[in-house]
């Protein structure tokens, strides 16, 4: 009987009934190398689209680059960056806008998912909750731009309800302008967290909840003392995924505010775009990209490490 199990090299042998002559003829070195050869094209492709641009950006960040003109400046771009008020403002804006949006998204998604996860209607129709996510981000940004700004929809609504007398200058106020970005982001991406949280809750053992209920625990106690701690690793992953996405928030800023008023809604991604593609200072933009990448990695690592450690404990 032909052996169809995995060989010592991790490669399956020939089909039943056929002598494994080809495989046996291969040298030991080839047998060892064969799996690596199989994955080489995929790895090369991945390296090409990730490592190469990354290395290119790092190299470019050491130059003053204006199209074909490259002048080596060493770490000058980084020194300028750390003394650049606009860079720090953009970083702060990213944390403020992203932090508020992410917190709201998490809270809303948790609340809605906890209310809904045992509901059979939700189980059957959860796709409806995903609809905002299915729109193109640029389309969502335009919808909210029209609602807040050009189309005066929100202002008109508030005037008709008697809350205000005049149209609101959304882009003239720092917090109102930030609010428009936060609302657009929360509207589109809360469903993403919702669907993850619902899946996590539905995966939890119903008997644990039942036992707690029999012991007299109420809704809030079950939520805080049982469901939430059990969901912590899932929440951490969801927050990291959304956090990385928010760190790179660009579309809404580009379409809705372009950093107005006075740069207080300019996120780090928009800052990099502006320096790179409006000022054509590619070396400086690359330096900012490298710094942003390092910060994102550190923050993501901290969140994941902390969340998973706590989960084990």
């Amino acid at each position: 009987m032909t052996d169809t199990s995995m060989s010592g090299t991790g490669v399956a042998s020939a089909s039943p009934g056929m002598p494994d002559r080809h495989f046996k003829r291969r040298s030991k070195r080839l047998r060892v190398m064969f799996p690596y050869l199989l994955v080489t094209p995929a790895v090369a492709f991945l390296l090409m689209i990730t490592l190469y641009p990354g290395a290119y950006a790092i190299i470019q960040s050491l130059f003053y680059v204006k199209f074909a003109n490259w002048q080596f400046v060493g770490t000058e771009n980084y020194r300028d960056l750390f003394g650049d008020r606009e860079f720090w403002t953009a970083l702060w804006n990213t944390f403020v806008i992203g932090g508020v949006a992410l917190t709201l998204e998490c809270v809303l998604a948790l609340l809605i998912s906890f209310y809904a996860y045992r509901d059979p209607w939700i189980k059957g129709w959860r796709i409806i909750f995903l609809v905002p996510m299915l729109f193109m981000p640029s389309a969502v940004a335009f919808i909210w731009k029209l609602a807040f700004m050009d189309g005066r929809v929100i202002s008109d609504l508030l005037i008709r309800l008697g809350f205000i007398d005049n149209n609101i200058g959304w882009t003239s106020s720092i917090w109102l302008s930030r609010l428009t970005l936060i609302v657009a982001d929360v509207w589109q991406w809360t469903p993403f967290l919702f669907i993850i949280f619902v899946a996590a809750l539905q995966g939890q053992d119903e008997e644990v909840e039942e036992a707690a209920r029999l012991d007299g625990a109420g809704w809030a106690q079950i939520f805080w003392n049982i469901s939430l701690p059990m969901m912590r690793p899932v929440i951490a992953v969801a927050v990291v995924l959304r956090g990385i996405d928010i760190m790179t928030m660009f579309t809404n800023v580009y379409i809705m505010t372009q950093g107005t008023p006075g740069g207080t809604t300019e996120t780090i991604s928009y800052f990099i775009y502006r320096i790179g593609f409006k000022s054509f200072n590619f070396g400086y933009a690359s330096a900012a990209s490298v710094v942003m990448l390092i910060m994102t990695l550190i923050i993501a690592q901290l969140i994941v490490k902390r969340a998973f450690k706590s989960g084990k404990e």
Partner: protein
Amino acid sequence: MYGIPFDCDFQMVHLRKSMVEEVLGGPIDRWSSVPTYDELIRISSELNGKVPGVAGVGLMGARGMWSTYTWEHVAAQAGMMLFDENWEPIFNGDAGNKGMDTILALSKNAIEGYAGAGWGENRAAWLGGQVATNISWQDSGTQAMRPDQSQIVGDFVTIYEPRISGGRFAPPNIAGSTSCVAASSQNPEGAFLMLAFLTTSSIMAMNEANANGVGPGYRSVLTNPNLQAVSQPAEVMAASLEYAWCAPRLPGMFEMEQVIGNEVNRALVNQISGKEALDNAAAAVRKIMKQNGFYGAKPPVDYASVAPGLWVGKDKALPF
């Protein structure tokens, strides 16, 4: 690099005819009804909110080039020049600050969201009838005449540039578009020909002559009655060209327009004073100029060669 200009943008002042005539108490004279920016500030103040949903003035105050153009437009009337003969930035002097004071005063009567308004937002507000006066490009006049785009057809007037006390008549010709092709192309001659006879011609035909039987690409187009029939600003633009104020097209100029506009925008939203904005901008512009080879033994552009084009109205008799 080969480049062919295909679009030339004049900043102009447009008025809603019915509203402004009501304030002025009579018909609008394009030369003299709004002779100064002080008068525009007064009119826009009076009209601001008079009709629900209609603001006194529209202006492009978004970050970047939009704020720069708006400020340059007004500051040029106060006598502002961007550089001296050594390419040192001088726009943060008295004339530049006068221009800044003027747009800050206008902004008090401006439509909500003006601080985030570029061409698209300003266009939407103007054509949608949300502003009583507007500082914008010449195409805001052309488009306002088109029933398929505009809700104010027949109810607007494009006027000649208002002045500033102690200033000059310097209508600003400060933006435009150029199609370019790199000389390092595999076939630069072929690419140039394509640019000249295909791309540029078609864009010109669309933008300026607008398929009305007017040949594209010549200044005389502006005085062509066929174009004037569909573009009210054409006549104003034709006369204004004789007195135009222009920003020099220098290496790094686009980047400079960005940094100036970012600072002007900060002033418009009261983060810093107008003077601080221009001082910050001057320092940033100097740095960009230096990066682009100015202040050395051989600057990339000779000031004397571009000086005559910076304000072509110099020493000319006023047209009014």
